[in-house]
C-alpha cells in the first residue's frame, strides 16, 4: 500500500544506515529519545537498532498513553464499571492494566459490564442502541486521540444523547517532556519527536526544547526508513552544531498542526491544574477534563469515584523505564514476574509499551548484554 511499502525498502535502509555510520563521530556516545510508543514498537519490530552503530543509543520515552495511566485512575474506572446499569467501554489494552484492586478485565469476569471498543464513536453507538443503560467511555491518549473523543461528544450533544459519559484521562505531550528535561538523572542528546501528535498540535510546540534546553528535535514518521532518516537528521544537526526542530514527517505533519482539531479540543476540553502520570508524578497542566459546556457528559461529575492515589508496586520500575533512565530488561521483574500475560507494570501491557515491545521482539538482547 502507498505510504507503507516504500518506507520499508531494505536497500534504502542500508544506505541510511551507512550515512548514519558516516556522520556519527567515533568515540562520542549519542543518546536519542524516541518520545512515543509507536516509534518504540517500530524500532523493535523492524530491528532498527541493529542498523545503528554501537555508539548511537535509542532511549524510550513516555509517549504510550496506556503506560502513563496511574493505578488510581484504573480504580476509578473499575468503581464506575461496577455501578448498576453502566456499560463501561475502553480500548482493549486498557482492560488489562492493573489498578490497586485488579483490572477492568477481572471486574468484567466478576460481572461488571465492561466492553472493548475501537473508538469513542463505537461507545456512542452503543449508547444509542441501549437508551435504558448508561454508557461510559474511559478516554485515554494524547492530543492525537483527544479530537476523537471531542468530536464524539459534540456528536452526542447534537444527537441529544443523554446516556453517554466520558471519564477523561487525556493528556498533553509538552508538559511531560518539560518534566523529563528538568529531571536531573536524564542525559539525552536529542529527541525523535512524536509524529501523529504533531499532526494535531504541529511541530512548533517543540521549539522550547532547542530554545530552552539546547537539544535538537526531529518529528518523525513511523516506518523504519522514517526512523533511520530521523536519526540521521539528528546526528547531522549535532555534527553541524545546529539545534532546531526539523520535520521529517512532512507528508503528514503541518508545522502548525490541524487548526480544526485544535478548535474542537479547546471547545470540549480544558486543562486540569495537575494530573498524575505513572512514574513521573503530578505534572501541572498536563491533563484534560471536559469543559463546563460539556459537563453533562462528565463521568467524574456523574459518578462517585474513589479518586485515591495508589503507589506503584515496589518491584515495578516503569517510572525509570518511562524516563529512559533504565532499559526495560534492567527492571528487576522484567520477563520473570512481569510478562505481557501477567503484567505488573503498565509498560508491559500495551504493545507500544517499551517493556512489551522489548519482550516481544528483542528479548534475546538481554542474554547478549548479560554475557
Amino acid at each position, binding site marked *: 500500500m502507498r505510504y507503507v511499502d516504500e518506507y520499508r525498502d531494505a536497500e534504502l535502509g542500508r544506505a541510511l544506515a551507512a550515512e548514519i555510520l558516516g556522520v556519527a563521530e567515533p568515540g562520542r556516545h549519542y543518546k536519542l529519545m524516541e518520545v512515543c510508543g509507536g516509534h518504540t514498537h517500530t524500532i523493535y519490530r523492524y530491528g532498527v537498532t541493529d542498523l545503528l552503530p554501537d555508539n548511537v543509543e535509542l532511549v524510550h520515552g513516555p509517549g504510550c*498513553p496506556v503506560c502513563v495511566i496511574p493505578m488510581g485512575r484504573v480504580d476509578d474506572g473499575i468503581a464506575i464499571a461496577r455501578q448498576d446499569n453502566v456499560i463501561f467501554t475502553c480500548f482493549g489494552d486498557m482492560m488489562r492494566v492493573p489498578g490497586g484492586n485488579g483490572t477492568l478485565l477481572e471486574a468484567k469476569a466478576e460481572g461488571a459490564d465492561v466492553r472493548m471498543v*475501537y473508538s469513542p*464513536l463505537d461507545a456512542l453507538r452503543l449508547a444509542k442502541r441501549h437508551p435504558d443503560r448508561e454508557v461510559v467511555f474511559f478516554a485515554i491518549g494524547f492530543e492525537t486521540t483527544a479530537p476523537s473523543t471531542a*468530536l464524539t461528544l459534540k456528536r452526542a450533544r447534537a444527537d441529544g444523547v443523554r446516556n453517554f459519559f466520558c471519564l477523561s484521562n487525556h493528556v498533553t505531550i509538552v508538559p511531560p517532556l518539560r518534566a523529563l528535561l528538568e529531571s536531573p538523572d536524564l542525559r539525552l542528546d536529542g529527541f525523535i519527536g512524536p509524529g501523529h501528535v504533531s*499532526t494535531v498540535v504541529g511541530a512548533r510546540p517543540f521549539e522550547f526544547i532547542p530554545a530552552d534546553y539546547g537539544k535538537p528535535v526531529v518529528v518523525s514518521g513511523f516506518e523504519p526508513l522514517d526512523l533511520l532518516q530521523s536519526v540521521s537528521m539528528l546526528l547531522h544537526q549535532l555534527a553541524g552544531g545546529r539545534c532546531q526542530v526539523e520535520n521529517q514527517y512532512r507528508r503528514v505533519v503541518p508545522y502548525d498542526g490541524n487548526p480544526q482539531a485544535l478548535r474542537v479540543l479547546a471547545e470540549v476540553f480544558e486543562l486540569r491544574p495537575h494530573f498524575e502520570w505513572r512514574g513521573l508524578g503530578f505534572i501541572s497542566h498536563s491533563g484534560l477534563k471536559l469543559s463546563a459546556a460539556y459537563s453533562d457528559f462528565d463521568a467524574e461529575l456523574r459518578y462517585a469515584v474513589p479518586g485515591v492515589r495508589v503507589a506503584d508496586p515496589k518491584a515495578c520500575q516503569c517510572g525509570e523505564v518511562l524516563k529512559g533512565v533504565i532499559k526495560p530488561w534492567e527492571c528487576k521483574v522484567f520477563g520473570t514476574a512481569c510478562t505481557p500475560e501477567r503484567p505488573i507494570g503498565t509498560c508491559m501491557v500495551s504493545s507500544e509499551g517499551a517493556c512489551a515491545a522489548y519482550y516481544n521482539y528483542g528479548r534475546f538482547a538481554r542474554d547478549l548484554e548479560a554475557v
Partner: protein
Amino acid sequence: MTAAYSCHGDHCITCSDEGLPMRVVAIDEPGLARCAAGDGAETLVMTDLVEPVAVGDLVLVHAGVALTVLPGEAVA
C-alpha cells in the same frame, strides 16, 4: 463490518501515535465515511477535521477520526 484495527496487530489502537492510512469508500452522512484499510477491512470514520473528503481519498485515521488527507493518488 469488520474492525480494521487490532490490539494484537501492527499497533495497539490505544497508542496515541498510531495512524493508519485508509481509503474512503463511501460517505454515509456529512462527517461520517466508511473507510477501508490495506487489507480491505472497513470501519466508520469521522471526517470532520479533514472536510471535504471524497470517495477515493487516502486519509490517515486514528481512533476513528481522519486526522489528515494524504497527498496525491486519489482514486475514485
